[in-house]
């Protein structure tokens, strides 16, 4: 077991930090009611990755281009999805999630069509959807750790202004901020989602983004810092323990184990925090 842990040390560290970072990002996206839009952006990135892999596999491209090409296409596709979804949201204020769901279904169908055009893509598609942290290379793990640290630092540093924007968008109906922080948040979200879908998969990304904040939003006691810290801790702890458990019990798949533990941790902590801190008058 110790040998396994040392082999996967970078991946374990990367998934723990990236999980916590995504959980913090997810709090803000959920606060802006952009969960379904994020699913669309993730699916747009999936489509870009699949087109990129299919294209570069067909033309036997050099390794550098084969690695960078899908990421560039993923970014372009998710950016296009973001622009289209923002236009939909601004043109028709009501039931935006219905429009986002329609867009998601079209993108999902697009992904499957691409995989049918390039039969070698089926394995890649499953890998990108459900992920397998055990198959991530050392260099990808280091890159994921760096990305996680950057997201975590940025979200902690700008936490107040990002939360203020989220509150203004959700409660006062303000448009997304065009300040430097607002633009950085949108751009950072796009890059993070593209990167995470490609490296750790769609399921891990979406689960870390929305599972902790979704369950903890039912807590009866209020507090911004408490919510942010617990969401990050739950996602980080679940990634660490889920990955370790999947190494110990080899029949357990990594990402579904992490997601299952995330649900358990979130429910336990939500109930514990509620009982300890909530004092009826």
């Amino acid at each position, binding site marked *: 077991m110790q040998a396994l842990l040392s082999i996967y040390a970078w991946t374990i560290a990367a998934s723990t930090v990236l999980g916590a970072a995504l959980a913090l990002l997810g*709090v803000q996206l*959920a*606060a802006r*009611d952009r969960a379904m839009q994020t699913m669309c952006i993730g699916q747009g990135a999936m489509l870009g990755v699949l087109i990129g892999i299919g294209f570069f596999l067909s033309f036997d491209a050099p390794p550098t281009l084969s690695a960078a090409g899908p990421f560039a296409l993923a970014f372009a596709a998710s950016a296009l999805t973001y622009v289209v979804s923002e236009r939909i949201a601004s043109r028709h204020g009501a039931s935006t999630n219905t429009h986002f769901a329609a867009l998601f279904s079209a993108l999902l169908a697009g992904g499957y069509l691409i995989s049918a055009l390039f039969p070698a893509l089926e394995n890649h598609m499953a890998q990108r959807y459900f992920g397998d942290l055990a198959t991530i290379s050392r260099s990808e793990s280091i890159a994921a750790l760096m990305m996680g640290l950057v997201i975590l630092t940025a979200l902690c540093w700008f936490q*107040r202004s990002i*939360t*203020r924007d*989220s*509150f203004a968008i*959700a*409660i*006062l*109906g*303000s*448009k997304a901020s065009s300040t430097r922080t607002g633009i950085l948040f949108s751009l950072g979200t796009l890059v993070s989602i593209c990167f995470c879908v490609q490296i750790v998969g769609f399921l891990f990304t979406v689960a870390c983004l929305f599972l902790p*904040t979704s369950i*903890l*939003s039912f*807590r*009866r*006691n*209020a*507090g*911004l810092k408490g*919510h942010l810290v617990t969401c990050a801790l739950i996602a980080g702890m679940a990634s660490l323990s889920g990955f370790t458990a999947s190494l110990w019990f080899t029949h357990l798949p990594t990402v579904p184990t992490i997601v299952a533990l995330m649900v358990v941790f979130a429910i336990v902590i939500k109930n514990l925090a509620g009982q300890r801190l909530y004092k009826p008058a």
Partner: protein
Amino acid sequence: MTLTAATPLLVVRDLAFDAPDGRPLVAGLAYDLMPGGIVAIAGPNGTGKSTLLKIIMGELKAARGSVTFANKSVGYLSQLHNREFHIPLSLADVLSLGVPGRFNPAAATALGLLAAEELGLAWNTASGGERQKTLLTQVLMTQPQVLILDEPMNHLDNVTRGKLYAVLRDFVANGKRAILMVCHEKLITSDELRPASIIDLSKFSSLSSDSQN
């Protein structure tokens, strides 16, 4: 720019704007918001009162005309778009988000709208009045020179309305600040808060024959 008592804090000239569906709403609107003044925007539903404030704040574009502030010290409180917020914030959290620097609870309660024991309440379970008081306190704590409020008396009971009237009177008392607010006729005629001037937006209707173009 050096401000004197005669320098308007907000100048609106020849403003015309439409509803989101393209229906013309207002044309030829012009006024100056002077220091120490309270200007109330009144008019029936659908005359574009809230739209006017959004145009003044730059959230929407006007079809024609200009809006010029003397400086950037402007506090704006729109009507609530949603009531629930995903993050379980306390009222103190909401206040601290809007205030630059370290949040001082004593300064928030000193304004007289919120009591100290209310600061720990959760935003999502607070009443409409408690939420409105929180947002009003938040905008007042930024100490703006111009306060722009969209129906600030919504959800407030009579006692709290009385407190808010006093706060607003104090706000303009030094003669250096001003308030522009959308409110209903009943408030305008109230003895407790007599605005310096009233803009009846229906008189500037693009469709009205007596438009003051």
